[in-house]
């Protein structure tokens, strides 16, 4: 009887139900992500002063792609194969390696294409340089991009390796290991202000722990945060300490997914300790490692607080990173259009890595 009544009602088709249930999400998503994003692109096509437009909405001017040109291009820019030999040789070598590994079938097609593309970019992009009497319109932009890449290039392997080693070491069900797990994860819950404060004290040449240890051994303390050679290292160390936790937890989850049978079987074939790690743990963790690396890349491209609070981008801009430059351009200099153009550039880079993760992830599903 009751069942009949329900059956008598007009039922939503599965598609209609899905649309209805997805609607709240799409509304929020459109309002808080899609619209601001499109507006960001729109702003990047204008000469848009933050304060002037706030007081007078007509104070903006449509200038097309001029912001992009002013940020990324220059006067008399030329291209040559040997403008920046070190990077370009690495690029060429990478392209060659991708072709070789693909031909000998030691690398899947998607991975080879990704590696090849990255290598070609590494060969092509550093080749641009100002010719005679020329100059970049914005002398700081590309060095800032370079600093950001260096930061990501040091931090991501640093976090991944450290987290992997720690996870492998504490992947045991004892109380001591549970305590250690919590301790290692604890730094992750701190905010960037707290983390940078702790490390500014650590690195201080007068009162810092590191300086005190150096002095005990008779050395002169390094002035980490204002020394050109150590400032970036200091920020990278801070970041590794800070963002270890999530990577470690992901690795622990991955490690616990590996069946104990595999290790047992391996032990019979005399694979224990480091060999077991190399031949059993690593291959089974491949997907987790990829995930951690891509997540970290996307996360660390957005580095801001560490550089802003610890070194103010210095000394001599060696720790100036992209998001800090965007922030300065937008808020200190009020040039919202130009800042948006840089933000769109950052978006393109990060979406590149997201696509890469998508491609690599699909490959594993084959």
């Amino acid at each position, binding site marked *: 009887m009751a069942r009949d009544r329900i059956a008598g009602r007009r039922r939503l088709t599965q598609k209609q139900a899905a649309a209805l249930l997805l609607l709240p999400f799409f509304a929020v998503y459109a309002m808080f992500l899609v619209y601001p994003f499109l507006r960001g692109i729109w702003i990047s096509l204008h000469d848009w002063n*933050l*304060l*002037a*437009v*706030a*007081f007078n909405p007509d104070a903006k001017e449509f200038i097309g792609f001029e912001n992009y040109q002013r940020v990324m291009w220059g006067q008399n820019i030329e291209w040559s194969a040997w403008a920046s030999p070190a990077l370009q040789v690495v690029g060429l070598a990478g392209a060659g390696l991708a072709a070789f590994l693909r031909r000998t079938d030691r690398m899947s097609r998607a991975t080879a294409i990704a590696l090849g593309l990255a290598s070609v970019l590494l060969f092509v992009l550093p080749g641009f340089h100002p010719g005679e009497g020329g*100059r970049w*319109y914005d*002398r700081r932009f590309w060095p800032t991009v370079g600093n950001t890449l260096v930061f990501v290039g040091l931090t991501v392997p640093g976090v991944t390796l450290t987290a992997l080693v720690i996870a492998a070491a504490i992947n045991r069900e004892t109380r001591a290991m549970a305590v250690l797990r919590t301790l290692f994860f604890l730094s992750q819950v701190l905010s960037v202000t707290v983390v940078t404060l702790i490390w500014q004290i650590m690195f*201080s*040449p*007068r009162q810092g722990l590191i300086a005190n240890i150096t002095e005990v051994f008779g050395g002169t303390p390094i*002035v980490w*945060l*204002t*020394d*050109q050679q150590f400032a970036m290292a200091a920020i990278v160390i801070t970041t590794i300490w800070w963002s270890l936790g999530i990577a470690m937890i992901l690795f622990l989850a991955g490690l616990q997914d590996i069946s104990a049978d595999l290790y047992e079987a391996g032990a019979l074939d005399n694979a224990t300790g480091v060999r077991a790690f190399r031949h059993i743990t690593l291959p089974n963790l491949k997907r987790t490692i990829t995930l951690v690396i891509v997540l970290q890349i996307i996360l660390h491209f957005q580095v801001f607080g560490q550089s802003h*609070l610890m*070194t*103010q981008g*210095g*000394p*001599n*801009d*060696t720790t100036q990173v992209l998001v800090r430059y965007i*922030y*300065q351009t937008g*808020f*200190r*200099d*009020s*040039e919202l259009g130009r800042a948006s153009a840089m933000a769109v550039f950052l978006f393109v880079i990060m979406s590149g890595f997201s696509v890469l993760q998508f491609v690599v992830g699909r490959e594993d599903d084959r």
Partner: protein
Amino acid sequence: MKQILIGAAFAAGFAVPGVAQEVTLGRFFGACEDAGTDTKASVGEACIIQSIINAASAGIDGVTVETLPTDWGNYYDQIKAAYAGGTPPDVHVMHRHRVPEFAGLGALAELSDDLAAAGIDPDDWAPAARDAVSFDGGIYGVPMDFHANLWHVNMDLMAEAGLVEDGKPVLPSSPEELLKHAQMVKEATGQDYLAADFAQFPIGVRLVLALMWQQGANIFDGDTATINDAAALNAVTAITQLFDADLADPQLNYADSQQAFLNGEAAVLVNGTWVVDLYDAEAAKAETGLNDYYAADFPTLFDQGATWADSHMWAIPASLKANDPETFGAALKVLAFINDHNIDWARTGHMAVRTSVLESADYAALPHRDEYATTASIARDTPPSERYGAIQDVLNRELQAIWLTDKPVETALADAEAEVQDLLDR
């Protein structure tokens, strides 16, 4: 009619007891947790200003003041974002050098006709203070101080090096003498002659600027950058000769350079007027390495006296005056209260802006005040520009490149000039 309405609104506001008008206030100077309301007892910029604000909140009938949390390093970014979002604080502190940018856009309320009614007498302001808050013939704020770079001196180290005469430090009168004095201090005491924040905040920039002004030069003139010249080269090498001879350390930041001075590891610290009362208090403590403290005028190493200076001032958003007369009235009362306590703020070491205060016995009796009496007359700043912040940043980066990364001086000055020119052209 409008006046009557506003008057009625005011009357209504006052007629209801217990409903206080809340005024939000934005400021830098750092945080002070327990400032209290005693404006005569607090020490240091943060606590002195907060005690004045607390006293205003407690003392002005029908007005409470809420100090918004702001961070010094990002203060102007926060204020700009607040203006852009349409929610600026009802009163906020700012520097003289920001007036062209903020008043130029119409962000600040013009106060000429409101000051007298609020009990603020602009004629009592020193002429330079009135200049500081004026823009295009209007008055856009209430000035609070002049602040400038001083040479803070450790007299014990100077005496050891034989650089004290009649109880005053003997300061150099040329770059050559600067080097000689620095060597004398090193030989006699083993300590550095000069410390300053050359590594982060633009104290080093202000030092070089002063030495450029002392030669009659400046970093730009109208729309033309003029950094890459002999005057700048002289100014920079006057400093770098100390680094090269190991008589000063360019790697110290603000906190470290201050600590070095307080530990007795540097005879001179270049820093602003804002720390005079703080160092005076530190020198009184037995545990610091600084015992005999002297606050000297910035010495003249070239042709004419000059030191970097600026002013702190308080402003009200134009939108408040236009849309919310009640809060605007309350905000003016807060400014009047701060103006009335100019002598208390001068306890920091800053120079007062009111003639009546400058001429008072209380002011003359403030510690070390007579030691840097000339500073007011040699105070200078770069020409007004909407891009002040960005220009300072360029100079800071290029100068840091010289002393922290061994970039050749000529290249750095050429790069600085090109970049400042870019900013002026934008």
